[in-house]
């Protein structure tokens, strides 16, 4: 069962990105091959500091999570991020 977390992308490197969650902690994600988002779409989200909603699964034995989908919530769409 996938989980959902909200936050802003602190930095992105290829298909990996660090999300600062609403609780203030940093969480590392790796884009899944079926995420519907390409690695080159992450930097615009980072630069816009848009709030994003990440659907993810935990990685067994790893310290990152697999991002299954990234969405920009409707309330943050206005004039901020158009990358996704």
């Amino acid at each position, binding site marked *: 069962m996938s989980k959902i977390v909200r936050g802003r992308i602190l*930095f*992105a*490197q*290829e*298909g*990996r*990105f*660090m999300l600062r969650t609403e609780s203030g902690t940093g969480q*590392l994600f*790796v*884009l*899944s*091959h079926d995420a519907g988002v*390409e*690695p*080159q779409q992450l930097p615009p989200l980072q630069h816009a500091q848009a709030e994003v909603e990440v659907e993810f699964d935990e*990685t067994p*034995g*790893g*310290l*990152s999570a*697999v991002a299954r989908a990234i969405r920009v919530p409707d309330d943050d769409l206005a004039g901020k991020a158009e990358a996704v």
Partner: protein
Amino acid sequence: MQVHARARDYPQSQFGGVLPHEAELTAGVRIQPGRSYGFFTDTTRCIGCKACEVACKEWNNLPADNVGLTGMSYDNTGALSANTWRHVAFVEKIAGPGGGPAEMPPYQSQWLMMSDLCKHCHNPPCLEACPTGALFKTEFDTVVVQQDICNGCGYCVPACPFGVVELSETDGKAHKCTLCYDRLKGGLEPACAKSCPTDSIQFGEIADLQSRAAERVEQLHGLGVASAYLYGAPGSPGATGDLGHLNAFFLLTDAPEVYNLPRAPTRASNRVRPSLATGLATMAGFALAAIALLGRRA
């Protein structure tokens, strides 16, 4: 390494931003496109601190994997992988005649440590195998995978004679060390070399590193370490099979196999012609046998 004269221009300990040509201060080299850069890893200086592994993961945002103990000495990453682009190998050579522990000589000279990585071959077999052009040679003579072009076919994986490239199970694409391509473009020394506290990992221009390495071998021979030799420098083990030289080369004190390195790596493309000839000869043999059998029956 001598402290660069430019260091006098920066007496303060905190800076407002990135210094121009910072590698000149940290590694004594100005990074310029069109020149060859790489690593010289002197394993006799490695203390196994894994600062390089951590710096690599921090800079490249790589997740930790295989969290736990491997049971292989102090090695917890095990091998190079899609998420581990630097791997510090621990080779404990403690075995008495009966297989049990023997006395440890001074300076832990029977404990070998080596920080392994992509060798950034002069003639990279992974690049030759890549059908999409995702793998390319950069302006710094390093080998990088372009993530937006890689289609995850995996041809580069068996083509690498060092077993460096791996497909990620998460995104299905090939990943390996980029020799900090983004840092080089910004004039910064690669993260692993900058973090190395003993200068076991030295970054610089290839020609400069090769002469520095040859001097180090001479020095070690003079100190009585007759087993010291270079792996991957021109004309040495590792620089075989038309690979040319390796842009990331090593100073070793035991056989390459002890460090999990191939003694004589080769390009996969060198095996295409003999493999094709063998296949055609086999098919011709089968055809001749079939003609002989059918002719006898008729």
